[in-house]
């Protein structure tokens, strides 16, 4: 099996703080790999480093290409859909315009995205800044799914959302994972258990565990790695 992402000895410093200290792991093609860890251990920074949004040293391979030093747009064009932690929809643009920006080539799958999120179709002319948090997350996920990207980087899709909406999004991501490789950062362990097959755990800027999602059934390990009770 080839790897969709391969990271070795990744270091990132942000304003003097050594956030990632030699991170190495790989994301096999197909399925969902969850990147876990306490707050502030460098999960988001790892995704941002893969996208070239922060300066890093070390090796990063994405979909078979050595991308260290590439500009972000070139890395993304290899076929990455990205859902950032804070959704980052363009609040001054309409829903339609937000989606239009995400189009690449002629392969935009509007029908599919609108069947997943019918609300985005009816709210096409609404400014994204006036959407609710859940609707903004829909839009952010829709942007990433619009082009059938082979690799999806998804950062905390459940953050700040009601359980019902979280479960709806989990269903969408489950379907997306049927044809894309997903690297998922997520704090909600029930979502992780539902979606992921593999886990990578970070702590203090280093990988402290690589394994299968069943490892999360061990409460002692969960407490030790994530500092939370494992009963979720």
């Amino acid at each position, binding site marked *: 099996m080839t790897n969709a992402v391969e990271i070795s000895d990744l270091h990132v410093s942000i304003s003097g703080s050594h956030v990632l200290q030699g991170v190495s792991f790989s994301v096999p093609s197909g399925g969902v790999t969850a990147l876990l860890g306490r707050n502030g251990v460098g999960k988001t920074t790892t995704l941002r480093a893969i996208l070239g*949004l922060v300066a890093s040293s070390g090796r990063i391979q994405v979909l078979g290409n050595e991308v260290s030093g590439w500009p*972000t747009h070139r890395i*993304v064009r290899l076929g990455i859909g*990205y859902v950032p932690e804070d959704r*980052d929809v363009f609040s001054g643009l309409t829903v339609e*315009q937000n989606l239009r920006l995400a189009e*690449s080539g002629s392969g935009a799958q509007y029908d599919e995205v609108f069947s997943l999120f019918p609300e985005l179709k009816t709210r096409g002319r609404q400014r994204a800044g006036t959407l609710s948090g859940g609707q903004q997350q829909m839009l952010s996920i829709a942007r990433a799914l619009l082009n059938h990207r082979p690799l999806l980087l998804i950062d905390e899709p459940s953050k700040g959302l009601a359980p019902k909406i979280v479960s709806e999004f989990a269903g969408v991501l489950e379907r997306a994972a049927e044809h894309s490789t997903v690297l998922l950062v997520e704090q909600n362990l029930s979502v992780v258990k539902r979606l992921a097959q593999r886990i990578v755990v970070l702590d203090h800027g280093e990988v402290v565990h690589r394994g299968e999602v069943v490892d999360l059934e061990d409460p002692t390990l969960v407490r030790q790695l994530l500092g939370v009770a494992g009963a979720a």
Partner: protein
Amino acid sequence: MNIFLVLTFSGVALGAIYFLAASGLSLIYGLMDVLNFAHGLFMTLGAYAGYEIATRLPSSLGAPTLVILAIIGATVVGALAAGVTELILIRPLYGKPISQILITIGLDLAGVGLLMGGFGSTALQIPVPLWLIEPTHIGGLYLPNASFLAIGAGVLVLIGLEMFLALTRYGIIIRAGVENREMVRALGIDVGRAFTLVFVIGGAMAGLAGILYTIVFSGDLVSPNQGDSLLIFAFIVVVIGGLGSIRGSAVAALAVGLLQQYTSFYIGGHSGWAQIGDLSTVLLLAVVLEWRPRGLFGRVA
């Protein structure tokens, strides 16, 4: 009453020129955080390009054709100068605001110096058709025709820019980039190309502003420092309107143009203190910033 209406009309015309000068500056700052001090040079270059076209082409073409060609030429030269500046000087300096400011100030000084060397420091006269100098008689008022030209150009550019920003893919990229440049990149879009385009558009507006200012307000005279004096008002307009907002620039330009005309005449005319018009715009700037620190239409940083 008639005087008030004439002042209002010429204030709107002056506002239109300020808007042309400010819109490019505002777009460039809004998307790229570049405070472009070479914008004044682009305006001056536009005016000199217009002068060269109007004086070197055969006069058999006729004054109206020549002045139209001069206006087009000024716009194109402004656009080219700005595009080349972005590609060669600004591009290596993104994320280094101090260096950008220094290099654009340096470029402006060097450019103005070269123009002085090449054309001399005395003002040069652009030949314009008679109808541009004559007034039109409307309802008891004599309104200068050149002012109609400025107002028409201002309105067309405002509508054109708004449509470009609202409807075209590049327009949407630029608006998205003003909000969150990083996310635009993360959608696979080469923001660099949009940056160059914004500079080109800004430069075109500057060139147009330069030649129209010459025709409408400086008695068809071109001089090496004219862009820099116009630039000061353009900056005031951009800050009052809110950095990055085209509509804000339009409203602020109108306000500054009108205020300047009214105070120059009603206060300056009686007291003999001619600079009161300029001073009033700075006072307006201070009042607006006290009340709304981000300007009238400024975005939240």
